[in-house]
């Protein structure tokens, strides 16, 4: 609350300042020379859409002409529209597959922008502590092998917590999603049984449970059923008040509670350039949450076909998003990039070209 009052006051003072400038007939120091940006269109992932929307809004105060229209149609659609060049940039939760990268007419870069995580959420009235679960246990729950909450596999990890004999009701995503891709990829790393029986994908054949539509459908399913367990995105679980588990992955030394901080840590070892097999699951970094994921902007290396203004705007926007924009991320319960990754990102940004030459950030975004 305090924070919003503060930002409101800030916005007010900015507005007053701007009004002061415009009423002054002589143009202020840089309005003529500074770059105002231009309108652009992007499409893709739904997972980072709240962050992107916030960014586009804030970026307007940096470059007033940069009205960016982002269509959150899903990663698959984003890749498709990016490939057919109907949008200026694409966005995807999963890195381009080799076949998808090969079907691009020109080389493109993937820029990690923000981080998120999947949490294992549950509905167990009376259980107030965070449950502790390791990878194989989570896999066996979703495989239908562990059917009661007081199964020894669960109780042995949660000494001191009295777990009821309630049946476990699995709730999963019915629609295809990056969230499911992250979760099933992680389970495949944790359990060879999961890998051979189910595997990883945006949609898989679930051995047990009911399917809900979107994070909200899964959350509704969990809230309505005692003993339910499911997976949702971290920021969704926080905003909807679900209880979620501390997770121990195969590389973790201890159970880690999902948080902005622990998700951020998971990206510490991320190396650019991004390849089709890049992921930040089961990070070895201390205190890193195991089921973390990143999301990417897709931008062609050579921006000449977009025209000079768009090329500059997209460059400025990504530059700004990777530096100042990162400060806005945690307020939305997403995790910012660790500085090591942001640095590599900026390094990759310098490889973008317009008319065969590198692009420099406008003074306003620095």
């Amino acid at each position, binding site marked *: 609350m305090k924070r919003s009052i503060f930002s409101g006051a800030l916005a007010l003072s900015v507005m007053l300042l701007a009004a002061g400038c415009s009423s002054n007939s002589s143009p202020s120091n840089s309005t003529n020379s500074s770059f105002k940006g231009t309108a652009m269109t992007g499409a893709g992932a739904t997972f980072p859409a709240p962050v992107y929307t916030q960014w586009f809004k804030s970026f307007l105060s940096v470059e007033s002409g940069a009205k960016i229209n982002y269509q959150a*149609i*899903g*990663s*698959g*659609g984003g890749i*498709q529209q990016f490939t057919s060049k109907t949008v200026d940039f694409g966005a995807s939760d999963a890195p381009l*597959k080799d*076949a*998808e990268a090969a079907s691009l007419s020109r080389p493109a870069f993937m820029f990690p922008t923000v981080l998120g995580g999947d949490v294992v959420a549950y509905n167990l009235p009376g259980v107030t502590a965070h449950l502790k679960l390791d990878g194989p246990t989570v896999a066996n729950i979703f495989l239908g092998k562990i059917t009661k909450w007081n199964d020894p596999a669960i109780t042995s990890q949660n000494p001191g917590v009295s777990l009821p004999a309630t*049946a476990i*009701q699995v*709730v999963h995503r*019915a*629609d*295809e*999603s990056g969230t499911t891709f992250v979760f099933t990829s992680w389970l495949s790393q944790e359990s060879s049984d999961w890998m051979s029986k*189910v*595997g*990883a*994908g*945006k*949609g*898989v*054949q*679930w051995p*047990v*449970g*009911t*399917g*809900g*539509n979107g994070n909200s*459908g899964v959350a*509704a*399913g969990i809230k*309505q*059923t005692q003993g*339910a367990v499911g997976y949702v995105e971290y920021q969704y679980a926080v905003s909807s008040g679900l209880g979620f588990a501390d997770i121990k992955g195969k590389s973790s030394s201890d159970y880690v509670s999902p948080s902005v901080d622990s998700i951020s840590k998971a990206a510490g070892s991320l190396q650019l350039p991004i390849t089709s097999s890049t992921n930040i699951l089961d990070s070895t970094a201390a205190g890193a949450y195991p089921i973390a994921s990143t999301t990417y902007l897709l931008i062609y290396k050579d921006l000449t076909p977009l025209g000079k203004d768009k090329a500059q705007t997209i460059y400025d926007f990504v530059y700004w998003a990777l530096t100042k924009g990162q400060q806005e991320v945690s307020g939305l319960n997403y995790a910012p990039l660790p500085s090591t990754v942001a640095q590599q990102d900026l390094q990759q940004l310098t490889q973008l070209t317009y008319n065969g030459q590198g692009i420099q950030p406008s003074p306003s975004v620095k």
Partner: protein
Amino acid sequence: MSQTVLDDISRSRAPVRKRSRFGDVLFRRSSLGVAAGLIALLGLMVWVLAQNGDHVLAHFGIHFFTGRSWNPVTETYGALPFIFGTLVTSAIAIVLAVPVSVALALLINEVRLGWLRNPLTVLVDLLAAIPSVVYGLWGLFIMVPWFDHTVEPFLAETVGRIPLLGALFRGNPNGGDLLSAGVILAVMILPIVTAITREIIAIVPNELREAALALGATRYEMIRMSVLPYARGGIVGATMLGLGRALGETIAVAMVVGNGLGLGASLLRPGYTIPAVIANEFREASSIGFHRSALLALALTLMAIALVLAAMSRLLVGRTAKLLAGGGTAEGAAAPSAPAVSG
């Protein structure tokens, strides 16, 4: 009326008749054009679906329809759970909705309701104007929890104990399931079935009613002997329109059916329908591999199911008409019968 009078009339209106003949031709041509366009549109849709879906049909053959596994990871696609779910939820909807609809239509037409009649008619019609996503939300947040905690445990405790029939109501009643989806569909098709049945009962000639009453029939006997036989063909047609809507309903079903590949006798387990799986998976289905093709083949399958059911309903209506022939009943009321897959 004698011939000369008719001649007089036609002479006096000669210029008008000439113009109306041109109008007739125009009308016939344009309606022919529209009809041909409609058939062409349907053909085009089938062609596009077949064009995109034949890839997967050629690869899996008959196993596409008999396979129980739908796995985008291993690229195995079997449609049986979806076909099963679609037919079962629609059947529940019809079984629940048609008796209620017929009863409502009879109530509105045959019972003197006074001031209640118009509000009742309007209310039933209003049900048709509610968007299906609203039905879905209501189902997800209100009906499914109520079913889980009250209705389904009760059914499992009572009907579930009866041999044979009980098999329908066993198992774990948590979360969305086939029964919830069927009930939602029943509510959704109620208005259309009621509206058509109401109109059909309204056109049953009063002479038939009067004849029955004159023979000493009670009101109930009059309805059973005069009204229902005459309206039977029309009621079947109305049912088919409702069935078409139930088969094609997408979003409300996707929200409450549970979206699991269940295949068994119990209605208390998660199921999946063809429209629901298309809606859930199409957005992210990759065009590399079989996934998108398989979803389009499913759409083609749904059209085939609707077509078969439409043909069956035609046969059914035709047979009833023949059975009742002699009395000359049923003929006039057999109009609507092709299920249109809406959604």
